[in-house]
């Protein structure tokens, strides 16, 4: 439901969904979620407030998760950010730390609203990942009851 070219306005998308759906719904968000994590957490909070049950699935490319580059590379930003020429070998650790910190914020924010948050690696088969997630979720629901 969210995506496309250009910078994603995550907060606006979440608010619009929350306002449009009048009954209680299961809302699954599939996105790379590249934006301010506070916007995402507020969006999740809004959805919960309206009685929906949001599931946040962050879809990331394997390269974005592992940053496997060795030689000098010019990264061409897809969402309006200019090219960045850098030495990936010397900044890999920093990048991965930033990525993990972001995920930590996301996970903590979602869990505080009792919303699920999972990271999906595009290199894995999406149907398998989803079915495994849904099975785990069903099992968790039975335990709650």
């Amino acid at each position, binding site marked *: 439901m969210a995506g496309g070219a250009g910078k994603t306005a995550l907060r606006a998308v979440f608010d619009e969904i929350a306002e449009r759906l009048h009954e209680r719904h299961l809302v699954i968000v599939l996105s790379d979620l590249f934006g301010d994590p506070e916007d995402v957490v507020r969006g999740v909070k809004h959805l919960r407030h309206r009685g929906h049950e949001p599931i946040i699935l962050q879809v990331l490319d394997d390269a974005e998760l592992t940053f496997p580059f060795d030689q*000098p590379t010019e990264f061409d930003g897809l969402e309006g950010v200019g090219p960045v020429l850098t030495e990936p070998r010397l900044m*890999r650790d920093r990048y991965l730390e930033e990525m993990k910190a*972001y995920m930590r914020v996301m996970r903590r924010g979602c869990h505080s609203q009792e919303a699920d948050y999972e990271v999906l690696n595009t290199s894995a088969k999406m149907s398998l990942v989803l079915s495994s997630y849904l099975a785990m979720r069903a099992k968790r629901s039975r335990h709650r009851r």
Partner: protein
Amino acid sequence: MWFAHPGILLGAVGAAFLPLLIHLINRRRYRREPWAATMFLLRAHRQSKRHIQIDHWLLLVVRTLALLAFGIAIARPYLSSGQMNWSMTRSAIDRVIVLDDSLSMQSMREDGQTSFEAAVQAATQIVSDVESGDGIGLVSASSPASSLVDRPLQDATALSAIMDERRCSYNQTDWAGAIRTANEVLSRGKASKGGRVVYCVTDLAGASIPVSDVATGQEDIDRIVIVNVGPTARGNIALDSLRLESPVIGPGVSSRVRFRIANLGSEPAHDIRVQITVDKHAGQSVAIGLLQPGQSIEPKTDVTFESAGSHVVTASITHSIGNVLAADDIAHLAVDVAERLPILLVEPDSQASISDRSLFCLRVALRSRQARSDRDLDAVRTIAPSELEGEILDEFRVIVLGDVPRISERSMARLRRYVLDGGGLIVAMGQQVDGPEYQKFLFGGREFPTATGTSGEPDAWRALFETGEYRLDRYVRADESDSVVRFKIPTLGHGVLADFEGRDDGGLNQAVVRGYWQLGSQAGDKVAPDAGELLHFENALPAMLHTRLGLGRVIVLTTGLSMSDTTLPAKPDFVPFALNLVAFAAGDAGDRLNVETGQPLISRVASQTDNESTVGLGPNGESHPVSIEAQNDSLVAVFRETHQPGIYRLRQGSREQLYAVNPRQDESDLRLADEGIVKAAFGPSVTIVSGAVEAAVGVHEELPRELAGTAMYLLVALVILETWAATSAGSRA
């Protein structure tokens, strides 16, 4: 700071830019990657940017410096004296320059200089480059090596002046003497152990380095630097020998000369021609054609001396390519040609017919000399042994003793005097000879003849008869043995017998010996230039011996010359054999007239007063002093200024004697000495540098201001730093 190899340094400076160049090239060779997670990338990039830049520039600087340090190290930096003053103090250093001024240094280099000119230039540079306070000595290496200054001097101007006046000699290099002399000069200097250096400025021609002799006598030398100033191309065609192949019979009779020409280069030599002249009158031109590297040949040619007197034959190379040394392209041969050859034959009185007398056949053979010339060449006189004491021996050029049984002691003394003064003596021993008497006469007491009892044993006689320990055992008659005894000619190439070597048709080899004196010897086939065995019997016993004695010559035949001793007189070879024998005994005085550079010219004089009337003239007509000296109880005029090859003249009143002075042969081989030989002779730590520019480097090499080591330490430190920086950057990554 100065550099020994500034060219290498320039190259190193260029190479130092390589890391920067590689960095710039790599910056242009990056991959492009579309990227969505720019928010993390930008944040990481912002935080890492400073570290990355530091790492990059640190590595770049370290790698650049490492290359620069490597270049500086091999460019061999050193500090000049001014820089040394503030950086360190050092003890005085004494140096000796051994200037090779031998004949081979006349070789022409590619730059148009002779090797000697380049040597003087290099030596001058060494002198001008040393520190004030250091001493320099100068040694001439041409034989005999000599010191040009007593002790190391600090006067560069005086040393340069000595070198400027120095001229290249025609002698060989005396390496052993030069190093010994350098050692002596250093021992008189101020420098202590560790500061005594010898520079040998030379063409490093390998043939002239006697390893074992040079290796000794280096006690006070700490280091030897060899500055090679020789030509790069070292091809040389040398005419290194010119001699008479057969004795000179007389004026108008052709004689054969033989010369040796050698290709001492590494390339074949084409179209070589040798011009032969007699007394400056051009004779034949001998075409040699092709000479392979290392090959030498000995062509022969006939020459005729039209008149009696002193003559000079000259052989000169007129055309050859790849011949860098001209000094050995010409050779001279001085020859004395006698108008008449007065011969005294001494044979016992005999009741037998004239034809049975001991020297009858020789007398007949000598008459045939006239048949070979239009002139009356000989004056042969025959006497009995009893008349010998009263005869005026000096009137004869040759005396032949033919089977004379006994010789009185007075005659022995007169014969010795006669030979010492230049006469030729032939002793033919037949069966009438009294063995013990002749043992005493010829070989007893290790002096010839023993009966005179005078001092001064002649060296040549000793060389033959003392070392040979000859014993006149007994007379052997042919009928004692079943086997027939014949002559056997050893292959010696000697002028007397060269015509007969390898030939059987003339009969010398076939002649039967009917009786001979058995001469026991341990000498074997030893033949020295002035003494030796010329002819053997088939049983290897000596048949003919010869030796120089004073200015004359003695020839001993262990058999007689009559038909009762041998059938040789009946053979065709007898006449030429007899003529050669007599001519050889009379001598062309060849040994005396032909000497090497540096050897004295000697001429017999009648009295001390001849000093005033004797004049010595060099090759360019310049006159030199002549001294009158006593040698072997005779007075001789001695001329010692024979340092230049060419034709010399000794004038005594109206008489003029020509002499030929030729350079030594061992300087013609210009091939570069093998490094192993150089190290064996001059020590394993010897340094070899090339040319004048590097000579100055040698001056600095031995000093503590040499900075190559420092640069190497810096290089090692930079490599360690680079490794650390690269590892550190990698670990951060």
